[in-house]
Structure formats: structure tokens, C-alpha cells
């Protein structure tokens, strides 16, 4: 009762303009050191992806084979060394960033739009519709996510599009569950009833009250899922089901370098670290967002 955190007191400020609530979230996010590290890291990767052509030449550095320079250790000319075909590993990692981020974001968008819609419908309408949707999702959930993705790619064939479809579909049940739970918790709030009492229709209620208030957990979940989609992409590529060589992708770089680890361990070091850092940065941001969006958890 008297612990100060549970009571809200009026802040004696003269508010003349409406403050954006996202600004508050941003302010809280900035306070978390780990989230800021994550943001900086992901920004670096985004820059690499965006400005890749200015950093290295795709045809020459990332694809061009050069037998004379194969398996060279890191040096000033080849920061991360060269691979078994004499290609510059740094250049390949830079171009690999493009693929990883692209596949990660697109496949999560697929999962979010399909799974999110299903979850929102199930949560808002409940009853039989909810039951039917959840039963179907139970089936999808019974197959471990990555195995579902593997199965889909195995059937459709390995290509970047099929990879995105596979990773996207395999994440549908997760998104549906999170969105459903979030909508359910908002739906029971009295302000939804209050909106109905003043004559708001279903679509107004969903768009204006339910969705904005259920965003927080969904945003967090999506951030974390981009991280795991990137992980899934490289996993599939590693076992030969994702991006096919010679196109540079972190997972297939690792698969290619595997045979040389005895004497040239650097060949698997940097692509792996690229995965770890990208995934880690997104996880850091996700964690930071979770705390920033839900201050009472602190």
C-alpha cells in the first residue's frame, strides 16, 4: 500500500502539448546500457548491408575465385583472411549481412501478418472460431519450428524465396499465440467495454483500442523472432537447404569452411561471430524493449 511504486501521483507539470508515448519508451530504452549496445551493433550491421557495394566489390571480392590467395590468414589486405577458393571472407560477410537481415525481416513479416491476423481473430472473437484456429495451430506447434522449416524447404527446393516462406510459415503459430494472448488481455479491460458503451463499432474498437494496447508484447516478440529467423536461415544454409553457394551467406560459409578447421580455424570464426553479434544485438534490443514498454516489470 504505502510502497511508492504502486501509487501514481500526479506529476505537477503543465502539459500544453500531447506527448508521444513512444518518446517515453525511447527515453527508457536509452537508459538501458545493454539495449544501447544492441542498437549500435545492429546499426553497424545495417550500415554494412546498406553500403556493401562501397565496402567491397560483389563480383570481384565476394565471388571471384583466386586460387593463388586461397586459405590466407587474416592480414591487412584480407581482414578476416580468405577461404578455400581464395575469396575475401570480410567481403563475403558484408554481403552475407544483406541476406541475413533481409531474410530475417521478410520471414518475420510473413509470420507476423499471417500469424498475427489469425491470433487477433481468435482472441477477439473467441468461442468456436478461436477453438478452430487454435486446434490447427496445435498441429503446427507439435512440429519443432526448425524441423517444419527444414521439411518445407526440402519439399519446395532450396531458394531464397522458399527459405523465407519456410521460416515465415514455421513461425506462424508463435505469432498467433502471442497476438492472441495480448488481445485477450486487452479485450477484458474495462476501457473496451467503455468504448462499446459510447457506441463504438467492432472495427473502431479493434483498430483504435485493442491493437495499439496489445502492441508492446508483439513488438518485443517480433524483435526476438528476427533474431531467431536469422539463426534459422544460417542453420538451413549450413545443412545445404538455404542459400546455395557461391552466394555468400554466413551459414553456408561455415559449411564450406568446415573441412579446413584443423589448420585454418579463422575461416569459421568470423562468419560465426557475425551470426552471434547480429542475433545478440537483436536479443539485447528485444530485452530492452520489454523493460521499456512495461515499466512495472522493473
Amino acid at each position, binding site marked *: 500500500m504505502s510502497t511508492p511504486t504502486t501509487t501514481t501521483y500526479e506529476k505537477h507539470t503543465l*502539459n500544453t502539448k*500531447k506527448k508521444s508515448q513512444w518518446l517515453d519508451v525511447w527515453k527508457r530504452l536509452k537508459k538501458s546500457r545493454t539495449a544501447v549496445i544492441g542498437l549500435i551493433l545492429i546499426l553497424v550491421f545495417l550500415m554494412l548491408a546498406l553500403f556493401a557495394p562501397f565496402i567491397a566489390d560483389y563480383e570481384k571480392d565476394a565471388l571471384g575465385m583466386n586460387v593463388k590467395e586461397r586459405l590466407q590468414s587474416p592480414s591487412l589486405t584480407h581482414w578476416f583472411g580468405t577461404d578455400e577458393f581464395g575469396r575475401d571472407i570480410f567481403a563475403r560477410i558484408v554481403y552475407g549481412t544483406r541476406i541475413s537481415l533481409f531474410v530475417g525481416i521478410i520471414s518475420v513479416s510473413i509470420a507476423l501478418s499471417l500469424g498475427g491476423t489469425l491470433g487477433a481473430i481468435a482472441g477477439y472473437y473467441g468461442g468456436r472460431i478461436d477453438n478452430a484456429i487454435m486446434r490447427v495451430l496445435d498441429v503446427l506447434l507439435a512440429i519443432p519450428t526448425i524441423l517444419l522449416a527444414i521439411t518445407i524447404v526440402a519439399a519446395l527446393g532450396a531458394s531464397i524465396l522458399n527459405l523465407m516462406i519456410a521460416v515465415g510459415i514455421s513461425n506462424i503459430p508463435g505469432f498467433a499465440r502471442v497476438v492472441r494472448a495480448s488481445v485477450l488481455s486487452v479485450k477484458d*479491460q*474495462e*476501457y473496451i*467495454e*467503455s*468504448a462499446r*458503451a*459510447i457506441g463504438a463499432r467492432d472495427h473502431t474498437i479493434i483498430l483504435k483500442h485493442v491493437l495499439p494496447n496489445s502492441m508492446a508484447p508483439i513488438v518485443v516478440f517480433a524483435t526476438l523472432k528476427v533474431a531467431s529467423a536469422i539463426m534459422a536461415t544460417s542453420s538451413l544454409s549450413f545443412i545445404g537447404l538455404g542459400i546455395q553457394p557461391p552466394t555468400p551467406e554466413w551459414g553456408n560459409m561455415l559449411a564450406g569452411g568446415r573441412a579446413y578447421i584443423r589448420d585454418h580455424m579463422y575461416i569459421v570464426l568470423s562468419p560465426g561471430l557475425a551470426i552471434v553479434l547480429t542475433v545478440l544485438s537483436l536479443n539485447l534490443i528485444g530485452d530492452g524493449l520489454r523493460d521499456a514498454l512495461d515499466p512495472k516489470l522493473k
Partner: protein
Amino acid sequence: MSKIILEVKNLKKYFDSPKGKLHAVDDVSFAIEKGKTLGVVGESGCGKSTTGRVILRLLEATDGEIFYKGVNIRKLSAAKMRELRREMQIIFQDPFSSLDPRNTVSEIIEEPIILNKLIKNKKQRFERVLELMDLVGLSRRLINTYPHELDGGRRQRIGIARALALNTEFIVCDEPVSALDVSIQAQILNLLKNLQHKLGLTYIFITHDLSVVNHFSDDVAVMYLGKMVEKAPAEELFSHPVHPYTQALLSAIPRPTLDKHEKIILKGEITSPIEPEPICRFANRCRYAEDICRREEPQLETVEGEHEVACHRWRELEG
């Protein structure tokens, strides 16, 4: 009798539960005159809040009729009902969860005006919001704050302003002060009373707090497990309670005075509201219960004038 604004006949609301139908409101009837307050009291699970929501069709009734100004609103289309919502409003118990946390005070208050297309001009609408804020005693400088920055009392004022934003004539007040501290509670009660005089509002005042209901209502209905067990003008009910449950309830209120009074301590388990048998639902805890109470369901009978009670033995006990 033309002054009746709302009349409810044989209202029933059953919920599905895993163990069968839960009889939340079971055959309740009453009427309210314009400008008056009907207090509905009872303990948790008696169906008082459900009654309020069913009247506004926030929940659809299982059976029964609800007449608002002579129109049976249970038969209205969704569009017609939306029109009627301009006159029938609700104030919620929890000032924390009844306001959308993502909207500012002004957005919350003007939402009903926009939705019902009452004032199209933006500037006039802003004027109206300020006017409403003045009316409920909210300082104008709070117009762009968010509900979570304000205390419970102010939040409740926002809820009241929102309910008054339309051409409101009838308000269901669902425990509007029970989440508030005593000193704030008195502020809100006085506000609601002044508004009633000023705007000629009709209230259904739902509460578990008998002292509040006595202070506030013209008529009082006591509910127990979905049933209305006693109804009378407030003065009559508090000076002359007839139903054993009402008596126990009245005696149980802790009074802030030094003279001690005898309390009726109830014993026995509360009957389950799921698929209840057609007997007196209070019989398990009633010290006067006899065979008949466990055999037949008592019906409302007139004690005197407007005073009604549903008890098999009230005549004997009175005598």
C-alpha cells in the same frame, strides 16, 4: 406513471460455466423514475454489476425485457441501440482499467462526441471538452495528460466527463467510488449528486457499500445470488429491513461511532449460483430457515406501499 424512464421485467442472465449454467441475474424486475436514483446493493457475486451491463446491452440478456422510455431495447437493432447509447451511459468501478492508457484526457472525453458525430467542428469540440472538464471539476491544464499520470479521483472524474459528453439522461454507476480513498470518495459522491440536480440525470447506483447507498439513493434494491430479495424506498429499507439477509447486511456494517450495536453473524456456506435449485437461495445461511425455505422459491411480496420482500416467513417474523 409516465415518469418511469427505465423498466426491467423478469431479467435473466445466465453464463456458461464448465459445471453448468451460472445464474448471475435470475428474474429481476424493477422500474426507475426520471431524475431518481435506484441503489442496487449486494455482496460480490450477487449479480449487481451484471444487471447494470445487461441493461445497457453490454452483455446480452438471456431472457426478459428492458424498456427505456417505453421502448423494449432488447429488440432494437445494433444501429438503433448505438443511437440510444447517446442517452444511456455507464461509469465504471476501476478508474485504472476503464480509461484507455494510450489516450490523453481530451481524447478520452471527445471520443464519444466524435463517434456519434455530435460536433464536427474541431474548435467547438475542444470548447465542449473544456466545458465538460469544468463541469466535473478537472483542472484545464490536465487536458493533455495521460490517465496513468493522475490519481484515482481525477481518473474517475474523466470517466464521468466522458459519460456526460453525449446527451446523457441515464447513467449506470458501477461501484464508482469503491476504489477510492474516503476523502476522495466524498468528493466524487458530491459531484455525482450535484450533476444529478443540475442535469436531471437518472442513476442506477451499484455498490456493496450500504452507507454510500443510503446516502445516495431514493430507492434501494438488495440482491443476493442473482435474486432481488428486498426493495424499498431507502428510508424505509434502512429503518425497517424485513428480509433476514438485509437485516444481517445492515447489522454487519462497521459504524464509526462508539455505541455498540448487536451484530447478526451469518453462518453456513454460500449456495452455489450454478444451476441453483428452486428454493430460497439464502436458506443455507438464514437463522430463520424452515422446511418451506428449502422446498420452494419465495416470490416478491408487498410489505407496505413500495416495500417488497422475497421471503417465505416475513409475515411471521414481522408479527
